[in-house]
């Protein structure tokens, strides 16, 4: 027995690579034979990849490329979509109110694009920004189309509220929220498109352009609201 004890030797410790541990954070990923980093996939789900989304008509509508004819077509589509929201607002009264609101809602978008954008273009041209009239018009069309898409999408919700609200104040509030959201999202898209075009300019020009765009944004908000409050009976315009 004593000989057996003397001959006893401890069992060899297995090499760390033979029995890898799941949470071994001390392992150097750069070391030879190191395990690859854990996959990005979560439990029961494949590794994340950007989905491949098919193109849609909305994507084509929000494109800034193309000639003047395609720009006009896209602008007219945006105006038509915005007028759907006007029809929804007029559903509270029905009849000619739907036509009045259908004309009044896109009028503000047209006013901002026709009155505000040329002034902005002149200001930006004074700062020698690399912006062509075609590109500026493309940004305006994108803004109008974006507003139109949002407003047309909000039309069923607006119709639900203006028809079922028992007071005019509540209906006006609901209508105002939709107009505000559609207008602001279209304005954001217009300014973002202009910013992409102005990215090629130097930093000083870009800074001046940002100030000009902020001023344009404020002007657009005030002008848009002025037009809507004047033309839409539901939000306080002439009936």
């Amino acid at each position, binding site marked *: 027995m004593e000989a057996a004890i003397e001959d006893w030797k401890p069992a060899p410790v297995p090499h760390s690579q033979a029995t890898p541990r799941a949470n071994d954070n001390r392992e150097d990923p750069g070391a030879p034979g190191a395990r690859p980093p854990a996959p990005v996939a979560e439990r029961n789900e*494949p590794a994340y990849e950007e989905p491949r989304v098919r193109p849609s008509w909305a994507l084509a509508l929000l494109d800034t490329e193309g000639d003047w004819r395609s720009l006009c077509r896209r602008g007219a589509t945006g105006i038509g979509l915005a007028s759907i929201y006007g029809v929804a607002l007029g559903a509270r009264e029905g009849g000619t109110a739907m036509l009045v609101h259908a004309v009044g809602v896109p009028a503000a978008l047209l006013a901002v694009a026709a009155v505000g954008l040329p002034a902005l273009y002149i200001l930006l041209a004074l700062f020698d920004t690399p912006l062509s009239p075609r590109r500026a018009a493309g940004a305006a069309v994108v803004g109008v189309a974006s507003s139109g898409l949002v407003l047309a999408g909000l039309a069923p*919700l607006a119709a639900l509220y203006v028809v079922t609200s028992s007071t005019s104040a509540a209906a006006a509030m609901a209508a105002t929220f939709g107009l505000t959201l559609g207008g602001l999202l279209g304005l954001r898209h217009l300014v973002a498109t202009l910013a992409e075009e102005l990215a090629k300019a130097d930093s000083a020009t870009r800074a001046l352009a940002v100030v000009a765009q902020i001023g344009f944004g404020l002007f657009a908000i005030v002008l848009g609201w002025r037009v809507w409050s004047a033309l839409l009976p539901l939000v306080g315009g002439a009936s």
Partner: protein
Amino acid sequence: MSPRERSPLGLLLSSPREVARRCLEEEGLKPLAVASLGALALGAAVFGGVVGSFRGGEQVLYGAIKVPIALLAAIVICVPALHGIAASLGRAWPLRTVIALTLAAAGRAALVLLAFSPVLWLAYDLGLGYHAAALAATGAYGLAGLAALGVLLRGLGRGKHAVTTALAFVAVFLAAGGQTGWILRPYLVRPQTRDVPFVRSIEGGFADAVVRSTRSAAGVYDEVEREVVRSAETAPEWVDPEPYDVSHEPSYGYEREDRWRAR
């Protein structure tokens, strides 16, 4: 079992990312949409029936019919708005993608409501009070909404304006769901209520409530509210313990019941 081998219902429960991917890539939309609609109809109907069981009787059937209708109506109203907002914020998806994503999110939420239904029913059966019952149902609805948000957020991905788009989606759905729910009320009715209509008259809505509360906070009361405030004087203390000064209000010849106001 890999996500690609699961049934659509299994995917709705355990793989929101795979569900979102299929919606965006338009892969297997039909079985996913059918499963989502079926889950929505079943889950919402069972939940509505359980909420109606607080009173019992015909309210169980009314709830089972109205909750799926309110949810479906909210989805139908929401989808065009979600499509427009997503396009404006850089995700110009096809309309069918938005429909599939919204249906899948709603189906997942309905399955969560179905899971909560037995617990809610037991709580009602054990004698939960009216207001606690309303809070419990609201809490279940809120958690179901979070489950739906999981699908939507995975669909929106990691690109620009993802958070803004998600917040806009939530706001639009709350607005649509709130109003469609209001139109089809009541759902939770006190047991002592004798006659319960299938739906009440509309009497305003979410927007009206906001406007009225804003005006009341500013001290501007409508004629109906003045009458309500005046009648609160004669109610027992536990209804309106705060005294209301009516010295400036026109008198209707109604005497205050001071015995109800003993301090």
